[in-house]
């Protein structure tokens, strides 16, 4: 209901929509931007750019669900900014999380042969099979770039439990990708 209201206000070009966007998505957008950029001031600029982009693209777009669209927009803006500053890459939790995930992708020669879309759809199929909690933990780490501590805090677990869980999920993903014959064992 809230999402529909925000979109309606954006369509009417009412600036109050930005206030509602901040209230509803601001914290998560900022945290994801910090995860990616590793720098609070850059993250704040990135979040401001996200609101501006959303203002410019809605309308004509009418995204449903709104939240995923907002997070994708914010994340891509942060990634583009990160790519312009390779030094920042070293401080990026998100980049580190991608490295962690890359380690579990089997095969090296075939790595080049598969498209990102194909790989992404396979990961999505894998995620669909998981329990809700495991899927959310996986995505918090590898899609939003949250640290183990943040995930532990959010899910009422210990950091060690989160690390163990993520290790198991990566192992299972590797087995799944081999089973799907995307990669050699």
């Amino acid at each position, binding site marked *: 209901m809230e999402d529909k209201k925000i979109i309606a206000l954006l369509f009417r070009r009412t600036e109050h929509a930005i206030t509602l966007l901040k209230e509803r998505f601001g914290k998560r957008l900022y945290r994801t931007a910090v995860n990616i950029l590793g720098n609070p001031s850059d993250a704040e600029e990135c979040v401001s750019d996200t609101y501006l982009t959303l203002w410019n693209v809605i309308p004509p777009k009418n995204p449903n669900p709104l939240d995923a669209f907002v997070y994708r927009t914010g994340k891509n803006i942060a990634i583009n900014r990160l790519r312009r500053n390779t030094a920042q890459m070293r401080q990026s939790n998100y980049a580190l999380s991608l490295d962690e995930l890359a380690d579990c992708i089997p095969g090296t020669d075939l790595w080049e042969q598969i498209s990102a879309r194909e790989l992404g759809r396979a990961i999505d199929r894998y995620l669909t099979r998981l329990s809700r909690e495991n899927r959310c933990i996986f*995505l918090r780490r590898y899609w939003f770039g949250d640290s183990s501590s943040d995930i532990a805090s959010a899910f009422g677990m210990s*950091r060690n439990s989160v690390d163990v869980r993520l290790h198991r999920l990566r192992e299972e993903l590797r087995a799944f990708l081999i089973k799907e014959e995307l990669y050699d064992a």
Partner: protein
Amino acid sequence: MMRNKLHEALNEIQDRHISDAARAARRSPRILWLGTIAAVLAACILIGMLHTQKEPLPVLQHTQPISTTEKLPASVNLVNLVASKEYPKMAAFPNYTGNISNEAYSAAYDIWVASQKAQYNQPTGYADSLTNFFIRSIPEVLKEDGNQAFSPLNVYMALVMLAEITEGQSRQQILEFLGADSIENLRTQAGHIWNAHYSADGLTSTVLANSVWLDDAYTFRQETVDRLANSHYAAVFHGNLGTKELNQQLGSWLNQQTGGLLEKQAENAALHPDTVFALASTVHFHADWDTGFSGKNTKENLFHCASGDVSVAFMNSVRSSTYYWSENFGAVCLELSGNNCMWLILPDEGFCVSDILKTDAYLRLIMDPAKWENQKKCMIDLSLPKFDVSSQTDLAESLQTLGITDIFDCSISDFTPITESPGLFVNKIDHAVRVSIDEAGVAAAAYTVIATPSNPRPPTDEIAFILDRPFLFVISSQDQLPLFAGTVREP
């Protein structure tokens, strides 16, 4: 290359999964955790009851032990354990070694989660009535100069036992101080608090122990002794109180229950030869930092005491955390295993620890940080002195100031629930606490002027939180109750 491809691949994930993950909330506020050794804390309290004129009475008929799980050394025959109740069993946290199948690990993990839920299934708001007890007791005990430490949880448990063995106005004063309207409700609440704070799963250790020491020369009401054993997990001992041998055994019990942390204080825990009975209560808490400090970043620096500067080791780290501020202090919360926290509360320039203790603002923050208005997530450059604070105080005077008076006066005290012997009074309430922290992590700190903002003004995105002058600390539990509080004036 691989990063780019993976990033693009992750963009293929369905919207509904992204929405769901962003919304996913805390599963339970009580499930446990891990880390490295960081904070060990212990507290004990010993309450001795004297007779104005010791007069031998018929010897107690010993009851059969309920269990013998807490045996004293066989060589000592002067003290006998007559009752103790077994502590709850908790499933051990399954350590993941890689040599275990996913199915086996999942099964062990599920058992551990179920065990946690069973242990911590306490009703909402079970400790709400204790707020006033915390507000009144913490500043009263911490008011003295020098390093001070106090365990509200430990004192609460001892006072609950004291309420069980008193009657009339003696009991009423304790009930009022603890915010309880009846002994039955206090007993129920104490059970919730005991269970909510007991932990023995190999990850976090919080052990609360009680004991009752009865002099052989007196007769005691079995019903009350049984209640102390069964409702409050008290081990019941009897012997000739005040003798050298028994004092050694008492010291040994205190030492054992506090993991050796209060060895020196336990040695001094001697009962007067006229003691008729004594109550002892201990808390031994051992938790790990969620995000540790690196030893290589620990550096010597100056701490500004009232008596002059001293050089101490500072642990340093930079972390993303929430900074809280008020009109006269800044605060951060360091997470410990088991969803416990160590709050560090630093008075702003121009204020001192005593100023902070004058109002209940710091307690309101600790007990409900989500509602605190002035807070901001930012990068915190933390510099914390390693400290090992211990204190041993007689709380008799403080408790009298706080309204518990009759138990100290033999002409009006009422201990009839435990013994018919008249003329009893409490002669001392010995409270010993030790709090010791060390690192497992980071940082280099040179002496830096603190950047804590003065007055309600939002901080910048990076804060230097340097505890190089007297500060207040509070260890709070997963239910945000203050377990330990103390002041560090001379680390």
